[in-house]
Each structure stands twice: as structure tokens, then as C-alpha cells.
């Protein structure tokens, strides 16, 4: 069997050259667009955990050490425990999902502390948080597969809040159980 080498037709050469041009132009335009973002992407990717760690590092400069109580607290809450915790209202409940989802519906009395906008939200809540340092804080996000609640838990712990528990089931489990919801107007 012989394979004949056919030269690329002029029209295809022209098309391929155009493809190379458009690919190059895309990356050039993309780099320019990136510079105009509120938060331009750095050239090397940082994971969600790394970004939150950097935020915590910048916040820790001002953070004061918070006394740790001798009482033991869980690091995870089941739906039943979380429901009791919410009803008792003894500690704060944080919603680690993006703020827009919090607006559409959240666990009653939960405060928005989104992982993606942690710095601004934490700065806003700092005074309120410090008065609750000896109490349990609970964090949830959308479902068992989301990592935001655990990332926020780790961030709060690094900032000196020792008693932070995660409700792993998150908003999905809460709504599936038909428990009360609250909306932010």
C-alpha cells in the first residue's frame, strides 16, 4: 500500500494560519481583560484553600489570641444536633456559600460568611464574633460534597476560634428535611 503525500491546499493553509492567529489573539485579549478584573487572576493558580490561607495570614496580623474554654465541643454536627443548636440560639451559625445563595434562602439566623469573600465578611463580623469566643460556632455550605464549610472552619480556627463545628449535610440536607428557612430581603 502506498501513501501519497498530497500537499496542503492553499485554502487550508490560509485557514490554518487564521486559526493560529485567532488562538494567539485570544490569549492576548484574555491577558488584557484579566488586568481589568477587580481581582486579576495571578499567572500561577492558587487553590481555594491556598487563597483562604493567604487571606487568613493577612488578617492574623491584627488578630488577638482568644482564650480557649475547657469545655469540649464537637468538630462536626449531625442534622439533629445542628437543628437543636439553631433552635437554642446559643452560638452563631455561618453560611459559607456565596452571598447570592444566602440571599435566596438560609438556615434561620445564619450569617453569611462566604468562603470566596471571607476577608470582607470577616472584617465586618469581627466585633460580633469576638463576643462569642467561648461558644460553639457552626458552619455549613451547600451539601456534603462542598468544601467551603471546612475551609471556613479551618480559617476561623487559624484566627483563634477553637470551637468551630461543620454541619456536613449543608443546605441540601436542611431543605430536604423540610426545616424552616429564612430569606434576606
Amino acid at each position, binding site marked *: 500500500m502506498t501513501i501519497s503525500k498530497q500537499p496542503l491546499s492553499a485554502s487550508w493553509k490560509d485557514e490554518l494560519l487564521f486559526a493560529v492567529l485567532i488562538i494567539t489573539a485570544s490569549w492576548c485579549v*484574555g491577558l488584557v481583560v484579566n488586568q481589568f478584573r477587580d481581582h486579576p487572576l495571578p499567572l500561577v493558580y492558587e487553590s481555594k484553600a491556598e487563597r483562604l490561607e493567604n487571606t487568613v495570614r493577612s488578617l492574623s496580623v491584627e488578630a488577638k489570641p482568644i482564650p480557649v474554654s475547657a469545655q469540649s465541643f464537637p468538630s462536626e454536627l449531625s442534622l439533629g444536633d445542628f437543628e437543636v443548636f439553631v433552635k437554642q440560639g446559643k452560638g452563631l451559625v455561618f453560611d459559607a456559600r456565596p452571598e447570592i445563595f444566602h440571599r435566596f434562602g438560609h438556615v434561620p439566623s445564619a450569617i453569611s460568611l462566604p468562603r470566596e469573600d471571607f476577608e470582607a465578611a470577616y472584617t465586618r463580623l469581627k466585633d460580633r464574633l469576638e463576643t462569642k469566643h467561648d461558644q460553639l460556632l457552626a458552619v455549613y455550605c451547600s451539601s456534603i460534597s462542598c468544601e467551603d464549610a471546612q475551609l471556613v472552619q479551618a480559617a476561623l480556627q487559624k484566627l483563634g476560634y477553637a470551637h468551630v463545628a461543620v454541619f456536613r449535610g449543608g443546605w441540601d440536607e436542611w431543605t430536604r428535611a423540610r426545616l424552616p428557612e429564612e430569606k434576606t430581603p
Partner: protein
Amino acid sequence: MKKSWLDWIAIGLRITLGGIFAYAGVVKILDGQAFADSIHTFRLLPAELINLLAIGLPVLEVLVGGMLVAGLRSRIGTVLVMLMCLVFLIAISQAMIRGLEVNCGCFGGGKPSVAQTVWSLVRDVMLGAAAFFVFWREQKRHG
């Protein structure tokens, strides 16, 4: 030359494909970080390449989508769409084989899940097939 019904289907598909790609690109440009996080879930690229891809690929999708909608250089436009579909197909398939729950990030962020991954794969094959059909008609037109 009179257009056959196959040509009219190709025109409809070309415009739809272009619209889908342009929309997908705009959504990714608006939230570049979410797209970069989606690429990260595939565990395929080193950190040095993830953001570069998140910066350039959405613009390419918008430009190619615009070309297809406008009917400019449709032949190479569909080749680029098929190439992008092939890359997405490889990325999604390897994630499924490795048992990763990924969020394809095709139309912005979202929760990683197996159902999402399977749907992304089906959608990708459908888009690739549509692009091939348009390419076939364009190739016929060019002779």
C-alpha cells in the same frame, strides 16, 4: 445555487453552536476564578497552566462562537470547535476513569458531581457531532 434542506439544518446548527460557545465564553470571562477552580478539579494540569488556560480559552470560545454566528470562516471555526470538544472529552473521560467528581465549568461554576460529569460528556459529544455536521456541509460547499 439553491440550498438543500441539509444546508438549512447546517445553518441552524452553525448559529446555535456559535451562540452556545459565545455564551459559554462570556460566562467564563465574567467569573474567571470559578473557571480556574473548575479546571483544577480535573487534576490534569499543573498550577502554572491552569490560570493561563482560564484566561485564554473563554476568549477563544467567544471569538469562534462569533465567527460561527456571523458565518465568517465557518470551516476553520467548526474545526476549532471540534478540537475544543475533543480536549473537553479527553479531560472529562480521564476524570471519570480516575473516579474524580469534577465540575466541567462549561457554563460557569457549579458543584462537582458524577451526574454533572456524565451530562457534560453527553453534551460534549452532541456539540462535537453538530460541529462535524456543519464542517461536512462547509467542506462540500468549498468543493
